């Protein structure tokens, strides 16, 4: 049998049901792996006691013959998800010490199915970042390295989730994606990550960044595991008014690998200046793989693509400035020490200056500016109109019969931690150039590992699907995964 920590969710599920392994054994092996992984800084809070108790309960359920797919499966949970009585601080100093008195809907559903929580995973502060470097815990580190041994970013914001899945520190992890925060780190670490249709997963109990864009999704070793985990995370929730009351299909059962006759769009606007030839080549190879599998390839145009990032950097900070107004030092989290005579305004200002890191402060202030009197129409309303046009681009190609769209996942492979230190903020924002359109249009998007670059680092391809058709999208991703045959793993150095 494969080493326990390297099992996929599907193979662990099957072995658990056959009684070949127990969740207690499996969880023990992963707890030990997590303990030995501090150099990766993937886990911000380890919860081995919770994991052991959940594993024992899961073994009882499996024995009783009541075992949903995730029963006994050890997972990592992004720090953005509120987990009852367990630190949940969005990698921010301002939520230092916060212990939620409630459970997010997504984790409630995972635990309902018997999943085991190994701990809370590192991320960019409030999910604002593309390299995990804005985290109050310090950056998570990519288990992949080039020959030079330089420490690389696992991407962000779900960087701890990506590093943990890639380094066999959990069988799967939750992530969230506001502009690419599941798909970019998945691509940087050679794993699979899907952001479902907006409204598929409840946002209740997920610490809010930009509410009209935020979606949770799974990050896993392969497409089958993503299908299994997504089903458990999805479904209508009365506690989130934007959660869709739409039946959740058995996504795994839809993985036939048969994509004959499917129309795959190749958007010409995704050929961006300065993109490495390797990524162009990978994209062409991916196109050929889908054609060989029987899909019909069609060149398409999404004319407003270029305006997606600027629209995003109005809308997301605007929503963040509103959402993050709640961190005021009154109800939860950090409060600054006050000087003699300080009143409530000084308390707000000092608390927020101490509690928020510089990127979060910058985005709150940009959001405040674009929403302020005199600029609301010029920036915020204009960005929302451009968003309408971006969604219309996708609606049109889907109406013309396109089933899915193939693009690169990222404009580069993982870069060095600290490499962007002196770059202006916009340079970092360019990481999301291929992923952010999908959030603005509310569509499902998946990143599938498809090859290695000349440095031996993983590269991903992205497939974008029609709204609510994650099953079909996962099946196309499954066909791509089978054709690409990506099996590389990082060599253990940590």
């Amino acid at each position, binding site marked *: 049998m494969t080493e326990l920590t390297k099992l996929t969710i599907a193979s662990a599920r099957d072995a658990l049901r056959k009684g070949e392994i127990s969740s207690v054994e499996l969880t023990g092996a992963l707890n030990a792996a997590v303990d030995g992984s501090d150099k990766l800084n993937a886990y911000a809070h380890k919860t081995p006691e919770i994991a052991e108790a959940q594993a024992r309960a899961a073994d009882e359920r499996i024995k009783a013959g009541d075992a949903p797919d995730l029963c006994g499966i050890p997972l990592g949970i992004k720090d953005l998800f509120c987990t009852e009585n367990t630190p949940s601080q969005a990698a921010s100093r301002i939520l230092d*010490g*916060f*212990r939620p*008195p409630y459970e997010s809907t997504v984790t409630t559903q995972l635990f309902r199915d018997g999943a085991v929580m190994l701990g809370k995973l590192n991320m960019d502060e409030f999910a604002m970042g593309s390299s995990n470097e804005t985290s109050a815990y310090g950056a998570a580190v990519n288990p992949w390295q080039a020959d030079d041994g330089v420490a690389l970013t696992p991407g962000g914001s779900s960087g701890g989730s990506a590093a943990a899945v890639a380094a066999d520190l959990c069988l799967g992890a939750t992530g969230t994606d506001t502009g690419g925060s599941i798909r970019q780190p998945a691509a940087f670490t050679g794993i699979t990550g899907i952001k479902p*249709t*907006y*409204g598929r997963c409840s946002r209740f109990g997920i610490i809010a960044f930009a509410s*009209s864009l935020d979606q949770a999704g799974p990050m896993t070793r392969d497409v089958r595991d993503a299908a299994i985990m997504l089903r458990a995370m999805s479904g209508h929730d*009365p506690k989130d*008014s*934007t959660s869709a*009351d739409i039946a959740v299909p058995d996504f795994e059962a839809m993985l036939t690998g048969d994509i004959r006759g499917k129309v795959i769009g190749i958007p010409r606007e995704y050929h961006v200046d300065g993109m490495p030839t390797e990524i162009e080549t990978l994209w062409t190879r991916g196109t050929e793989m889908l054609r060989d599998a029987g899909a019909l390839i069609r060149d398409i145009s999404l004319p*407003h693509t270029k*305006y997606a*990032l*600027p629209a995003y*950097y*109005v809308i997301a900070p605007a929503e963040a*400035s509103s959402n993050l107004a709640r961190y005021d030092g*009154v*109800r*939860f*989290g950090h*409060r600054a020490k*006050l000087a003699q005579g*300080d*009143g*409530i*305004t*000084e*308390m707000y*200002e*000092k608390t*927020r*200056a101490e509690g*928020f890191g510089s990127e979060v*402060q*910058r985005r*709150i*202030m*940009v959001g*405040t*500016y674009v929403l*302020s009197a005199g600029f609301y129409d010029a920036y915020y309303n*204009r960005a*929302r*109109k*451009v*968003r*309408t*046009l971006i*969604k219309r681009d996708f609606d049109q190609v889907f109406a013309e019969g396109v089933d899915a769209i193939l693009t690169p996942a990222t404009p580069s492979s993982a870069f060095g931690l600290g490499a962007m230190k002196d770059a*202006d*903020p*916009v340079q970092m*924002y360019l990481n999301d150039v291929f992923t952010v359109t999908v959030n*603005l*249009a*509310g569509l499902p998007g998946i990143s599938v590992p498809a090859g290695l670059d000349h440095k031996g680092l993983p590269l991903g391809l992205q497939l974008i699907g029609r*709204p609510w058709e994650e099953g079909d999208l996962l099946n196309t991703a499954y066909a791509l995964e089978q054709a690409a045959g990506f099996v590389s793993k990082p060599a253990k150095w940590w």
Partner: protein
Amino acid sequence: MSIDTDTARRVAKLARIRVEEEALPALASEFNTILGFIEQLQEVDVDGVEPMTGVTPMHLKRRDDVVTDGSQQEKVLANAPDAREGFFAVPKVVE
């Protein structure tokens, strides 16, 4: 559109984030970089286009107007930096 230190100071104040006087020029310069990037949106013809309010068309669900939650003062106050006698405590609000 260019942001000067006065505007940066005003925005910081509106956002209730204390920014030291000497940090304002750098902040203004960062704002200008980001706003310069956003400026591209002015090229787009948005005449007659509705601003998006929600990405998936859906109606807000209604529920019966009954109490579903409450009576958990202890839980509500459990994470407060300063809670006294069942209340959140804050510094003086009015002179």
